[in-house]
């Protein structure tokens, strides 16, 4: 089993006619993902990466029965593409696009809260269930099928941790790159809930980083509602405090939150070991299995 995606997931690629969209559509198909269509306004009737392109997501769903989308649409048009995906009631939308304005994402997430769709990202590497399907830009070859769930705010750091796992023969149920933007569709808790509910996921590795309070909230969730063991890595212990001019953000978030120390303490208090190196995370995970 797995979470979010598997070999049956029928994927439409929004923005498939762009350079990145086309390249990664091909990569996804090569990996074995069931990519059934592309959606690009005005390009309906074309064929790209061997799949038909439709003008609207709606049409792609009607014609090809798609139930998930991957979004490679440029930032200026990404919010519109996400609304289109949400309003078409897909089960899963993975937003790869980097640089979507934060206010756009606040509006998208407001709509998301009213739907049953899972939105992963934006500004994320995607979701992969090794051997079955990948939706996004993750390098498929470093993943292996197995029983560890992985959730990460960072792209390349995810690959690093996965590499450490795979190299010692530990495969993954599903890896979810949730993205590092201030406002994202799937939080750590959302991903942890999915893994907790998945009988095949025996342990979870989570990669956090400084900023926000998502990791602290996840620690609370793990302590109170999660049986599956978790090991974590937190990037940014040595990062200098950012330079700010305004104070509004600091008032809202409160001082002393969002630091690596605060996150590591919260996780340790929740019984989650935090590795000093990615290798140490792999050690902890190996200990769970």
């Amino acid at each position, binding site marked *: 089993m797995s979470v979010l995606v598997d070999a049956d997931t029928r994927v439409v690629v929004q923005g498939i006619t762009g350079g990145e969209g086309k390249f990664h559509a091909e990569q996804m198909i090569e990996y074995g993902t069931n990519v059934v269509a592309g959606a690009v306004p005005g390009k309906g009737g074309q064929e790209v990466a061997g799949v038909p392109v439709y003008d609207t997501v709606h049409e792609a769903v009607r014609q090809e029965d798609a139930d998930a989308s991957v979004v490679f649409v440029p930032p200026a048009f990404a919010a519109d593409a996400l609304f289109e995906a949400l309003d078409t009631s897909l089960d899963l939308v993975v937003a790869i696009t980097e640089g979507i304005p934060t*206010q756009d994402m*606040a509006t998208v997430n407001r709509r998301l809260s009213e739907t049953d769709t899972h939105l992963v990202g934006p500004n994320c590497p995607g979701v992969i269930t090794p051997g079955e399907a990948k939706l996004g830009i993750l390098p498929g*070859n*470093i993943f292996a099928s197995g029983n560890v769930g992985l959730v990460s705010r960072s792209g390349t750091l995810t690959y690093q941790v996965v590499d450490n796992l795979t190299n010692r023969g530990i495969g993954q149920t599903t890896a979810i790159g949730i993205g590092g933007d201030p406002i994202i569709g799937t939080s750590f808790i959302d991903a942890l809930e999915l893994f907790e509910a998945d009988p095949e996921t025996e342990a979870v590795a989570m990669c956090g980083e400084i900023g926000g309070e998502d990791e602290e*909230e996840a620690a609370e969730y793990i302590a109170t509602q999660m049986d599956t063991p978790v090991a974590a890595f937190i990037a940014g212990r040595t990062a200098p405090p950012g*330079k700010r*001019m305004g*104070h*509004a953000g600091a*008032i809202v978030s409160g001082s002393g939150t969002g630091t690596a120390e605060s996150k590591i303490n919260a996780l340790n208090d929740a019984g989650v070991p935090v590795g000093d190196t990615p290798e140490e995370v792999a050690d902890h995970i190996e200990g769970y299995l």
Partner: protein
Amino acid sequence: MRLHEYQAKGIFADAGIPTPDSRLATSVDEVVDAGAALGYPVAVKAQVHVGGRGKAGGIEIATDDDELREAADAILGMDLKGYHVDRVLVESAVDFVNELYLGVTMDRGEGEPVAMVSSEGGVDIESVAEETPEAIAREGVDPAFGMHPYQARKAVYEAGVPRDVSRAVASVLETLYDLWESKDASEAEINPLMVTDGGDVVAADAVLNVDDDALFRHPDLADMEEESYTDDLERKAGEYGFDYVRLSGNVGIIGNGAGLVMATLDLVDHYGGDPANFLDIGGGAKAERVTNALDMVFSDPNVDSVVFNIFGGITRGDEVARGINDALSQFDEIPKPVVVRLAGTNASEGMEILDTSLVQVEETLEDAVQRAVANAEEVQS
């Protein structure tokens, strides 16, 4: 992107928020002319992107020409926390009976905008937030509907703003929210909003920080961007388009992806080294960016050793390897030892391409960092 006070005030004033009379000046003579035109007392305020300007000597009050000239002399040209002061705002000082705080930002935890009002403005508002959070009224805004007028009033009443100015303050808050939204701001702030004897309100400071990702739809704001770094390396990073932060150590770090670069810094620290910088070359980095990145860390005199850590997703290892070879082959002698670690897409091809007469190659992140730390120690010893 952070606007200067004078830029933000101009935008606030255009939107109808009362601001003091003021003039921008770049020379001592211009400052004195401005003082004469505005009438004393005036404030002289350094226009740099630094918090706590006042305490750092970036704001002075002058009551006559002599004081003003002295203040201008002191502030213009000063180095304020790493920024060169090349312009000041000369502004009519406001007589006030009360100082309020107004702010709008994105509440990341709630995923929605929040408007804030405090009757304890003019001070370090973050301390107020920490010590007496109840002194700051907060009103979450539903992004689907925007801020309703009643919400501005509610925040003002809950903050205990004096009743005779409550309507005026609510109106300023509505405008501030509209600006925050229409300018794609991350933060919009007035601290203090001064209340005068006569029951008027005046924005004595102005903060408008704009979401970089939204600048494409605000070309007018993008044009306002002006950095005045005193640090040459940070300016260079700006030109190259790198995400770069200079630190105090001697191990130069280059990587792709903020999380991985942060993790590399953490590992340098973990293995007893001291990071010289944060440098993220981004996704899909081409050979030219690799060359530029090496140029940056080599230009930093503090750097004794370099670790180059690439995990390829979009970024291809062979491309990176070629960039490294190209960049280093320009030198007769490699200025600082470089440890390279490539993983992910086309990593093995990259490893093969890498010229080991120019760089040291390691297979794992841990090994690469340890070797770079050792290199740095060797140079220092």
